[in-house]
């Protein structure tokens, strides 16, 4: 009497009836399974970002107040975002490097928008283990390549925020953004 099947065989009836009854039991259990999945899906989905979090998924940044040589720290998707107004000197320094010799080969052009080479927009998240590098604030250590320096494990980034020294595997990430006017960008 251990299971459904056992009971079926206890009272043998011609095949047709048994199969139909098996079918009912299997269908009932299958429906229960489908129902369970239908309940579990929203329970998993509730852990995804909620509507208010998604509403903050893009950030507008006004560039007009940032002088050449200055950088600002703002936030994008609850993480630091660095916007840096490069001086001609810094641009020249970045361009002087042979990109193919770098750990993560990229030129400054590739990391900025066409014709807006002086605006370097990157995430302020070190690609090593996610610390916030120094160098965006006034008077902070910019590291030996004049860009950003991560105090956690000593990664140094250059003026195009490319990794030059230290454990970080890739350059500081450039988020997706577009210019909404000459002096404003929309990140995300």
């Amino acid at each position: 009497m251990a299971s459904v099947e056992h009971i079926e065989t206890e009272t043998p009836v011609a095949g047709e009836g048994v199969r139909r009854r098996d079918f009912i039991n299997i269908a009932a259990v299958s429906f229960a399974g489908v129902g369970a999945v239908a309940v579990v899906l929203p329970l998993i989905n509730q852990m995804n970002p909620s509507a208010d979090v998604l509403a903050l998924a893009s950030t507008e940044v006004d560039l007009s107040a940032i002088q050449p040589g200055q950088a600002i720290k703002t936030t994008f998707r609850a993480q630091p975002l660095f916007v840096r107004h490069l001086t001609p000197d810094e641009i020249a320094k970045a361009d002087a490097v042979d990109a193919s010799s770098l750990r993560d080969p990229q030129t400054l052009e590739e990391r900025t928008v066409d014709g807006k080479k002086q605006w370097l927009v990157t995430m302020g998240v070190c690609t090593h283990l996610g610390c916030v590098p120094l160098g965006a604030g006034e008077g902070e250590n910019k590291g030996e390549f004049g860009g950003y320096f991560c105090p956690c494990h000593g990664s140094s980034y250059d003026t195009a925020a490319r990794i030059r020294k230290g454990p970080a595997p890739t350059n500081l990430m450039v988020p997706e953004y577009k210019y909404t006017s000459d002096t404003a960008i929309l990140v995300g």
Partner: protein
Amino acid sequence: MLRPALVAIGAFFTLMLLYSFGAGAVSYISEPPAATVEHEFHLPPKEVAFSFNGPLGHYDRQQLQRGFQVYKEVCSACHSLKFVSFRDLQQIGYNEAEVKAIAKQWAIKTPDVDPATGEMSTRDPVPADKFPKPFANNVAAAAANNNAIPPDLSLMTKARHHGSAYVYSLLTGYQPQPAELLKKFPDAATPPGLNYNPYFPNLNLAMAQPLVAEGQVTYTDGTKPTVDQMAQDIAAFLTWTAEPKLENRRSAGLAALVFLAIATGLAYAAYQNIWRDKKH
């Protein structure tokens, strides 16, 4: 030993309660409770045929937009809507650009910290913001409104019995105090500064009649803005603010019930099937 003790306890409670009942009944008969003015003159909400009534009703997006316009032009000067965001307006049929414009042009600004000076300041709301509150806090609200704090409206229709009809009835229910009431309860004259409304639980409320004349707002969809129409529209809008997921809920419920009906039918068949050979 235990049982007699328990029986004695039972007898004590029972006699005590019967005595209380007797005494209560005597005083109830000898001096019946006096009629109160609320009891005699408070009215239940009027019947209104909203599009969302009934288990399968839907919101009328046009009506919600009209109601939003009434909120914006009439209510929002005093009443906050603090749990609703501008971005939520997309659910009632505005597109992203319209929502952005509505937020930017909102008369009340969002409090913020000036990024340059660190001083408290304000900025234009953005779609992600909640509707800014008209008063910084309850003290300011009370000071500006003759000591009555205008309640937040986000959940108003769920915070009252028959909320949608209640809001409509209240807004259309202002009237002079009936002479009959004053004759019967001379002490119950509406105090100065309050307004008589039989749909309000204690009959007198601080809010003056907000919807006073036809044409108080101008509807862009050509609907005639009678007081009755405006009251219905704002009641509908506040029903949406309180229960924005009403339509999702009902359609999910329908799917769930259809599924469960089939599953339960199958479960019954399986149950009969398994018990086929057993009498019980």
